[in-house]
């Protein structure tokens, strides 16, 4: 029986739970921080010793925590790339620019439990010798920024932030920076540019990898809100204990934002990989199924930039059989476990874990036109294929939906999308091209029908005119 497993949002929805520090402290708050700061250097062989920082980093590595922002990159690995020998200060940035359409998980954490994020940030900063950290929050969350600023003030008063935190000799300050609502500011290097006060143009990688040349050309770590909250729980539970949650290689819990035409849209925290996509949509503990008399048409499994899954699609995936050997099995799209690797094998991605469900009442071309209009509007305009291409795609879809489409538009869209992906500076190119590619490939008949209907409608008056002229 698939059920929610709450770890990060365990206490947030309890009745009477408030986002202030007294409530957080009475629920066992900042205990993990005390535990982390009290870690003693551990002796290993050859007379060397491991610093507490290294021990925490190792715990995160063993936990197998993967970034919850979108790419699913290992958090421990990201921390290990940081250039610690340069002598420059290291910065930590919390990416609270939750701009992917369909995602609303970080908002829950910030609004209901901001101290959890701050505790996670202090531990992460301690583990990486960071003395200055930023929270980049999107402009559309004024309430979130207010709550975070209040929480930071409270934490400073209690001595969890500032100089010499809890007598450990570790200094840290956290600042909240409000963005102005641009989608591209959620991109790692775009965010860094924006934080520096420039226009959010993503940087060219290489050479500007944030782990080496990030904020103010210093090594920088950028982590998602949920990832940083998970660090707090890893320190509390221990890395190996955390790794037991979920499935191997896809450990821990994730907050899924379920939206679209389901009975119970909302956020659900699950163990990664223990619940399938179909259960998330149809089970009574989660989405509760579609409205009466409707059937499933398509699902976007990971925010609007992920490739769409058509209802009834089959995938071959490797699953262990009775003898423990890997064997290719045919899996229906609804039986895909909701984790990073399975969705990757199905040719899409779990992204920011935002599931958008569409039933048979939707017009797929309208959906894509809407998604594409968003990307055309949000393209930062730095590099040419994305700046031009996203607008062309949007224009083509606009004329399809407004009754001026052409028969060859489906092919035209595929042509543009294939020439955007992989040729841009940042991943925005893929984000705008993948939905177009997958929608057009999987629902080609609908796109062609739209174009053909228009041609037929245009053809009719001409025929009549010709007929009347002949008379």
């Amino acid at each position: 029986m698939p059920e929610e497993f709450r770890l990060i949002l365990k206490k947030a929805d309890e009745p009477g739970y408030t986002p202030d520090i007294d409530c957080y402290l009475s629920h066992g708050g900042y205990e993990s921080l005390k535990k982390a700061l009290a870690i003693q250097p551990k002796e290993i062989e050859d007379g060397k010793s491991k610093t507490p920082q290294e021990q925490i980093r190792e715990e995160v590595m063993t936990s197998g925590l993967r970034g919850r922002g979108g790419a699913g990159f290992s958090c421990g690995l990201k921390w290990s790339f940081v250039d610690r020998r340069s002598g420059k200060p290291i910065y930590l940035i919390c990416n609270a620019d939750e701009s992917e359409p369909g995602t609303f998980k970080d908002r829950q954490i910030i609004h209901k439990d901001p101290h959890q994020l701050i505790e996670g940030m202090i531990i992460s900063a301690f583990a990486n010798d960071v003395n200055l950290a930023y929270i980049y929050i999107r402009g559309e969350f004024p309430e979130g920024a207010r709550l975070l600023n209040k929480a930071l003030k409270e934490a400073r008063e209690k001595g969890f932030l500032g100089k010499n935190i809890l007598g450990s000799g570790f200094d840290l300050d956290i600042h909240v920076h409000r963005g102005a609502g641009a989608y591209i500011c959620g991109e790692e290097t775009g965010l860094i540019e924006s934080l520096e006060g420039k226009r959010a143009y993503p940087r060219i990688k290489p050479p500007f990898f944030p782990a080496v040349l990030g904020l103010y050309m210093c090594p920088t770590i950028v982590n998602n809100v949920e990832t940083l909250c998970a660090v707090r729980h890893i320190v509390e539970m221990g890395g190996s204990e955390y790794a037991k949650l979920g499935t191997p290689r896809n450990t821990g819990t994730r907050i899924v934002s379920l939206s679209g035409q389901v009975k119970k849209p909302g956020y659900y925290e699950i163990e990664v990989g223990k619940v399938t996509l179909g259960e998330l949509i149809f089970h009574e503990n989660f989405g509760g199924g579609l409205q009466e008399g409707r059937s499933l048409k398509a699902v976007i499994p990971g925010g609007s930039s992920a490739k769409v899954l058509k209802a009834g699609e089959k995938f071959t995936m490797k699953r262990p059989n009775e003898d423990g050997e890997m064997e290719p099995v045919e899996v229906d799209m609804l039986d895909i476990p909701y984790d990073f690797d399975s969705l990757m094998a199905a040719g899409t991605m779990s992204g920011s874990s935002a599931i958008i469900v569409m039933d048979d009442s939707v017009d797929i071309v309208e959906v894509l036109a809407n998604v594409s209009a968003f990307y055309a509007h949000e393209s930062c305009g730095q590099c040419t294929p994305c700046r031009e291409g996203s607008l062309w795609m949007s224009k083509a879809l606009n004329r399809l939906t407004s009754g001026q489409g052409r028969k060859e538009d489906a092919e035209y869209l595929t042509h543009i999308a294939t020439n955007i992906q992989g040729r841009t500076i940042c991943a925005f190119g893929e984000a705008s091209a993948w939905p177009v590619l997958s929608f057009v490939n999987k629902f080609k008949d609908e796109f062609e029908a739209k174009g053909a209907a228009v041609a037929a409608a245009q053809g009719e008056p001409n025929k009549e005119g010709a007929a009347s002229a002949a008379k």
Partner: protein
Amino acid sequence: MATETTKAETKPVETVTVKVDGVTVEVPKTTPDWQGNPVPTTILQACKQVGKEIPHYCYHPKLPVSGNCRMCLVEIGMPAMGRDRKPILNEDGTPKIQKGVLPYDPSLPRGAIACQPRWRPTWRSTRNPRTRR
């Protein structure tokens, strides 16, 4: 356009052995910029030194690398191969990547806007897509 970095040699002038379009050449590891300071050689500069001109817009020797026009994209390593184990080329025999960058594709609007047969913007297609809904 296969460009491959293989190995770096030591003093006096550090050179890198690269393969451009199947021809192995040696290029210096650093190139003086317009002020004479040595900066790492880019693929574009390396190809220019061996006589292969890569088309470019936004590159200028007196400006920092901007890399946003994407016109100078090249394939690094093995080019995409077809079933017959030969590189996939455009219809006119040029490498695929050469016409792959959208705005320079003459079959599309603005790629070569004058060449477009009867391409007229409709009133809807010129509007800001966001204002539609």
